[in-house]
């Protein structure tokens, strides 16, 4: 397996572990892009998904927005915005956010909408306000699905953030793009492995978060 040899050679070279092009720096940059894009996307999509799911209104509009968001090619958008706006973080953030909004939006809407109506009615019957119904009944029950939407979005951002390097920014894509131009295969495969590793780490983090936040009762019934 020469791919594994490349990975080993890349990771065991101590010069790859420090400096502005070192692995810690690049991982940090990648994490920065990912978290920022995920936070913006969640800030947009979560409230909209929760409210529309709770009121069961606007499902068709939501589906339209989600399809439009999916249809936009992230990479094309990145290059286009880079040409228009110029160097900076904004041309990277817009495509990443546009990529992450549809899964969060659609999954949150579906999650809240498909909550079993009987406990919701019971909560209303007990005199809970609509806000409390949403936050104390619907969200806890829908949490596993909502988290799965966020996970999909996070993994897509991690893997797509590599294209930031094409417009001269940092992140792990730097190794892949530079390696391709320099015909340095070891660097390319090393970078690719790091990104895949980060995606797997994202899976692990979400698994942990769902372990900690999803109520045991909900976990057992699902």
């Amino acid at each position, binding site marked *: 397996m020469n*791919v594994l040899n490349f990975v080993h050679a890349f990771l065991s070279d101590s010069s790859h572990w420090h400096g502005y092009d070192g692995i810690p720096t690049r991982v940090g940059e990648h994490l920065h892009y990912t978290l920022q894009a995920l936070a913006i996307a969640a800030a947009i999509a979560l409230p909209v998904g929760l409210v529309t799911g709770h009121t069961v209104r606007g499902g068709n509009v939501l*589906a339209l927005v989600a399809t439009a968001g999916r*249809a936009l*090619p992230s990479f*094309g958008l990145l290059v286009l915005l880079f040409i228009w706006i110029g160097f900076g973080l904004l041309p990277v953030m817009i495509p990443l956010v546009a990529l992450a909004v549809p899964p969060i939006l659609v999954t949150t809407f579906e999650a809240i909408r498909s909550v079993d109506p009987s406990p919701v009615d019971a909560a209303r019957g007990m005199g809970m306000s609509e806000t409390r119904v949403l936050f104390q009944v619907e969200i806890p029950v829908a949490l596993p699905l909502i988290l799965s939407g966020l996970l999909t979005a996070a993994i897509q951002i991690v893997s797509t953030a*590599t294209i930031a390097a094409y417009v001269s920014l940092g992140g792990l894509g730097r190794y892949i793009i530079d390696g*391709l131009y320099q015909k340095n295969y070891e660097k390319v495969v090393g970078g*690719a*492995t790091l*990104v895949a590793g980060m995606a797997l780490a994202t899976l692990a983090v979400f698994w942990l978060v769902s372990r900690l936040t999803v109520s045991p009762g909900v976990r057992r019934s699902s």
Partner: protein
Amino acid sequence: MSGFFDIPSDLQHSYLGLIGLHLREALLPVLAGLLVSLPLAQLCVRFRWLYAPVLGLTIVLYAIPSLAFFVVLIDYTGQTETTVMIPLAVYSLVVLVPAIVDGVRSVPPETLAAATAMGFGPVRRYLQVQLPIAVPAIIAGLRVATVSSISLVSVGMLIGNQGALGNLLNDANIYHRPELAVTSVLTIAALAILADVALILVRLLLTPWMPRKGAVR
């Protein structure tokens, strides 16, 4: 206006040629993914314990970034269309397998019992009862897979101009012709939306018994 469709000669394709190439690079993988996931999903329905590990595996494969996947494959299939299409086919599994499994599982047990009582064997029951009832779920999965596949092809540009319409992005950059990037982005988005609408129509044709109301997603 003509600048938008004046394709630089280095791409060796006309505008329509690029569209054809793009559709081929995006749709063939989804078709391959469907052909793989139909039997795979059936196995997962038959042997319940298989579903969790299969789903886990597809998620892990999906977590590999497209660019990284392309690059690793270059070693085996070179800087060709195949290198772009293999990852796209693999990605489609993460949507298609659960969609088909959920669809087939949603067939009510009474319906299956009725089919068995009418003398349907397992194969005929699968083809004539389970699959048709699962069509809406399968098409829902196909729509997500197709749209994201069409948008992902453009990343193939980075591995030696294998990105069909995405190749226009590089030309927009090196020739300083931003209108080419506009053409690329808008055409890809339009293709994705058209493919989505086409799949909705297919579902309406295949499921004449369903109420004609716009379903969510």
